């Protein structure tokens, strides 16, 4: 009886690791596709539906997939957080120079590069922010 139950537990753990490995491998295969899709959404955000926030959420899915695959807490939360603050500072400075100071009237050819750059800033900021949230909840709050 005793050995029987322990054998069932062993079988269950075996099955669990097998399915986890399957999920890990399949999710690992998705990395480049998620990255390319996110960059595409951000890069074409000024011409097609999408943009910084949406593409940033997709890029955060890249780190979410990494959380599922590797399950290691090797993210420097404070470094990422400081990086996010730096991106926010850029997000204040660039429109301040380009829009509020009226530079867009003098250099109309910079309008589209400005839109793309802003979308990239917003996308990276959203991706880093959501990554911090996912890692924080996954490793500390979800226990």
């Amino acid at each position, binding site marked *: 009886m005793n050995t029987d139950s322990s054998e069932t537990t062993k079988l269950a753990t075996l099955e669990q690791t097998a399915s986890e490995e399957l999920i890990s491998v399949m999710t690992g295969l998705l990395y480049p596709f998620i990255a390319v899709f996110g960059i595409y959404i951000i890069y074409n*955000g000024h011409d097609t539906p999408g*943009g910084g926030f949406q593409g940033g959420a997709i890029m955060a899915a890249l780190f979410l997939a990494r959380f599922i695959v590797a399950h290691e807490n090797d993210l420097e939360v404070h470094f990422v957080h400081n990086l996010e*603050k730096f991106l926010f500072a850029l997000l204040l400075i660039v429109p301040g120079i380009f*829009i509020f100071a009226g530079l867009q009237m003098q250099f109309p050819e910079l*309008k589209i590069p400005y839109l793309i750059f802003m*979308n990239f800033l917003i996308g990276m*900021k959203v991706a880093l*922010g959501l990554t911090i949230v996912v890692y924080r909840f996954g490793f500390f*709050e979800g226990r």
Partner: protein
Amino acid sequence: MRTVIVSIFVAFLFAGVVFLYTVHGDTTGVDIASYYIYNFAADTGAGNAVAAIYLNYRMYDTIFEALILLVSIIAMLHFFRAGGSK
């Protein structure tokens, strides 16, 4: 205790903002909407009116939206300390 006070303060702030919004009932009207629709490509160079609005006409909106994300993450790192490395 501090958390409770902060929560009550935030709840009052939320109620105040909602109250202000319902009281003044200000709307922008059709003029500005049609201006955006007909002029966004020439004004901003974008092919997508949404991008033109949130990155040019309504830049403040985007800045404060990004600020909300930053503040919420600061709040999360600050208040949730269960087992974290601070």
